[in-house]
């Protein structure tokens, strides 16, 4: 555009050159593709390497061959792992923890966010900020005091809170609830005030406003929070490492590392297979919910 204007201004060339916008766009696209491909390579290399290694025998992994190629592909690692009762226990523990944590977190944070975003009460602003500040405290700082609290409860009541998978259900919400509440406060706050006033006049109470207006309208936000919450509780490593020790109480991330590494013997094939299988559920949930998420965003956007 600039060149075209300049040419008209100087009058040296009578013909205006068109297509400069398309050229600019082309150049931008080249660069976009360049960086996108760079990032894709960067981020996909580890999973691809995991996949390749998971198809190799221990002998081939140990041998000096091209690490990016499988000469004798085998599914033995998968068969071994999936036939181990232990690995399936890890899977089951992880799944139970994730499902319970997601349910608890979503119920708590949706209700908390609704009251903080809409029902103005004394101290609601401070509380909302407090929720966010809680999220800013890293888990690596929290687990020692939490451990102390559990020990204290044990001394007081005799309830054993260490070395049970279900203890994680109490621990993970310290990470998920503040963040999900914060996300949901933002989502709920973006819903126009008139919408709840209209519902109020239509005869809805607070619970009905929440369930019949806010939750459906904020569904994309709720799904985003759910995905986050599931990922955190599925992938957390530090808490289960610190709070669970018996093999039958472990969850996947810790289980794979502690049972497949024996001393200084690394069973790389099974480690990679376990990691790959462990990464599958979040991936599947992402894929499924992302579709739903996008569908929710675009529903009714086109005129009929």
């Amino acid at each position, binding site marked *: 555009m600039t060149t075209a204007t300049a040419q008209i201004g100087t009058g040296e060339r009578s013909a205006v050159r068109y297509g400069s916008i398309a050229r600019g766009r082309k150049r931008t696209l080249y660069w976009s593709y360049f960086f996108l491909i760079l990032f894709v390579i960067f981020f996909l290399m580890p999973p691809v390497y995991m996949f390749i290694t998971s198809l190799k025998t221990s002998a081939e992994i140990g041998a000096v061959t091209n690490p990016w190629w499988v000469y004798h592909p085998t599914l033995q690692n998968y068969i071994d792992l999936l036939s181990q009762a232990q690995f399936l226990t890890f899977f089951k523990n992880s799944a139970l923890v994730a499902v319970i944590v997601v349910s608890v977190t979503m119920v708590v944070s949706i209700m908390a966010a609704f009251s903080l975003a809409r029902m103005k009460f004394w101290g609601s602003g401070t509380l909302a900020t407090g929720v966010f500040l809680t999220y800013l405290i890293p888990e690596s700082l929290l687990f020692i005091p939490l451990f102390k609290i559990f020990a204290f409860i044990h001394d007081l009541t005799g309830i054993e809170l260490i070395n049970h998978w279900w203890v994680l259900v109490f621990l993970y919400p310290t990470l998920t609830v503040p963040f999900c509440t914060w996300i949901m406060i933002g989502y709920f706050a973006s819903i126009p005030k008139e919408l709840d*006033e*209209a519902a*109020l*006049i*239509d*005869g809805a109470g607070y619970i*009905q406003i929440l369930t019949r207006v806010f939750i459906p*309208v904020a569904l994309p936000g709720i799904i985003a929070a759910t995905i986050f919450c599931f990922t955190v509780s599925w992938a957390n490593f530090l808490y289960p490492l610190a709070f669970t020790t018996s093999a039958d109480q472990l969850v996947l991330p810790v289980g794979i590392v502690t049972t497949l590494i024996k001393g200084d013997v690394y069973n790389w094939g099974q480690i990679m297979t376990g990691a790959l299988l462990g990464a599958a559920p979040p991936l599947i949930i992402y894929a499924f919910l992302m579709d739903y998420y996008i569908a929710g965003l675009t529903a009714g956007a086109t*005129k*009929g």
Partner: protein
Amino acid sequence: MAEVALRNIVKTFDRTPAVAGIDLNINDREFVVLVGPSGCGKTTTLRMIAGLEEATSGEIYIGDQLVNDVPPKDRDIAMVFQNYALYPHMTVYENMSFGLRLKKFPKAEIKERVENAARILDITNLLDRRPKQLSGGQRQRVAMGRAIVRNPKVFLFDEPLSNLDAKLRVQMRMEIKKVHQKVTVTTVYVTHDQIEAMTLADRVVVMNGGKIEQIGSPNEVYHRPTTRFVAGFIGSPAMNFLPCRLVEGSNGSAGLSVKLSDKLTFPVPPDRVGRYRPHAGRELLFGLRPEDIIEKRGDLPPGRTAFDAQLDVVEPMGMETMVYFLVDGTEVCGRVNPAVAGKPGETMPLVADLNHMHLIDPKTDQVL
């Protein structure tokens, strides 16, 4: 069947008064429009009738019931919001029936009421759509439909047309009037647009600074404003205000005249002399609407006075032309026939119709 009554209503937000003591009686089936500039307290008043705001003091009655402590859902009112406030995840049918479904009405009755309202509003073919798929005007109809199906005692409208473009606004204004003629329900309508107020209202309530300036029929507030604010707010273009002095004697007789400048003096029409006599000699404010300053043609009927004006700005509007000229530094607007309108800088003979003049006491801002 419901009257609405406000008794000395006050609303303060953090000690700032938004509504400073309002008394208002709205008759059954009456269409009342609250009009005023932004921040005059009209929307707050409406929201207090709806129950969305609590009155700081005073009493609100709907029907015979004191509703100060009654929640909105039990006040039997319906409200149409400025941005429509349609539930985005529901179809038009679901939007309109939401209130009835919450109240657990039988399905058949809900269907009948929604379809009836849809017929009135001509949106029967839109019932399966979602709000996103509707145009502004259609959304407005749905919002009204949601109010109609409830069959409430009182309709409340909060600037319902201000999000529409000018052409659609005129059309929807007529629609609202039509709907009110079909569904005669007590209606309180808030707007900052004085044309909407004039066209829709049985009675207009002009508000300013949290107080009511004047209550009256559209013609009353237009032709017989009681305060300077009402005189200036109602009417477009606005009334011309000029500082003047009321002096004794006109044409050598016992009358009065309004002296606007050294060159321009208008005689007061004889029927008003008695009314203005006590103020003779005072500095006052002279008010005259643009349509009462027209081009000179033929003989002058009584009460009209001719004068020459040097035009400053000329605005052709099509059916008429606005001419602006200066009187002692104050811009004055007149409305003349486009065929005879002069050009800027030219001198044009004009006529002022003083039968419609107003004199305002600048101390009290009351129209004399």
